[in-house]
């Protein structure tokens, strides 16, 4: 082994050492406790949030079979859906919360049209969404606040616990005007989520929305995500809107 070989070997050793150190650091940085599954990471919907055949020109349909609403809410919701579709067909889409750049809130944030980042730290799970730079906090082993202390909000209060390898989250206190696919809900709505790593890089959440005032049966559906830690989430400040919201509730493109 001449000097060149030794130098080459030393360089290779240094690279390997740094690589191993980086990997070890990455594994400990998640600060997990009690051997829980590691769900820290950047996640993108898989398969895509846009079902097959749905293009940018269409609205994404509600997941699963849609809500089993009580009457008259079922008829009202269907009429609103038809109105929205007719407006799309006419090329004059109706305004919605997203067009106004309002946060999606719960459970829409979990739809993850753009990737989401989940951070698992002691006592808390944080969901950071690229879309509108939303932040959702989920508290581990914390009781719900008293009803008087639970002011309605976009994300409500999320209380979670680990049940084996499943993260069980319950959320209450969502503002009535924060709606998932325009489905009405009451103060009594509870969103239950069960998160499970079905493969090291695949996360599944089974969502069940219960609302004794509006729903006959819980609205159940599933989202799956694929880990993509190479993806860096961009900032998303919604300050370059071209669309104009007209007085009739339609949206058009502001042209010069």
């Amino acid at each position, binding site marked *: 082994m001449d000097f060149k070989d030794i130098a080459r070997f030393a360089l290779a050793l240094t690279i390997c050492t740094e690589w191993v150190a980086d990997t070890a650091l990455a594994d400990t940085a998640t600060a997990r406790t009690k051997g829980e599954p590691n769900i820290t990471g950047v996640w993108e919907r898989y398969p895509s949030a846009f079902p097959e055949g749905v293009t940018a*020109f269409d609205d994404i349909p509600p997941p699963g079979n849609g809500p089993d609403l009580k009457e008259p809410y079922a008829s009202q919701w269907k009429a609103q859906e038809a109105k929205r579709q007719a407006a799309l067909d006419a090329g004059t889409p109706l305004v919605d919360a997203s067009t106004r750049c309002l946060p999606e809130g719960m459970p829409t944030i979990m739809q993850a049209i753009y990737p989401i980042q989940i951070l698992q730290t002691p006592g808390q799970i944080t969901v950071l969404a690229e879309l509108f730079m939303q932040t959702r906090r989920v508290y581990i082993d914390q009781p719900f606040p008293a009803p008087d202390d639970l002011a309605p909000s976009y994300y409500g209060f999320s209380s979670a616990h680990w049940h084996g390898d499943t993260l069980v989250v319950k959320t209450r206190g969502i503002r009535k005007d924060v709606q998932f696919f325009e489905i009405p809900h009451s103060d009594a709505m509870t969103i239950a989520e069960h998160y499970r790593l079905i493969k090291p890089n695949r996360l599944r959440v089974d969502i069940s929305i219960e609302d004794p005032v509006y729903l006959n049966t819980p609205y159940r559906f599933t989202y799956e995500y694929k880990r993509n830690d190479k993806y860096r989430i961009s900032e998303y400040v919604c300050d370059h809107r071209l*669309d104009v919201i007209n007085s009739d509730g339609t949206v058009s*493109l*502001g042209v010069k």
Partner: protein
Amino acid sequence: MYRIGKYALALGICAAVLAEPAMAHHSFAMFDKNKLSELKSVTVVQYTWGNPHVYIIVKSDETTYTLECGSISNMSETGWKFNTLKGGDKIDVVFYPLHNGKPGGALKVATLSDGKKLEA
């Protein structure tokens, strides 16, 4: 090798993300998906890099067209950068025109002065 495999996988995922339409902010229904308009050698008046949409304002003769593009992350994935265009650049554009006939649309592809084609 495992690392390389993972990297290749990540690249694959990026390519998959790239193919997404992802117009999250508002419906695309104001644009005519069945029609494409083309303008050759128009002058860039303004190029704005931001969310919810990047947009390009171009001038063709005396008409000013407003062209909406994707979000900054969609655009980055198809090769656009914050400094891809500047005022005065000459480009060709293909876009889905507005239903209401106003001068504007959703950009589909732009051909830059050096011949580079970028999907929006």
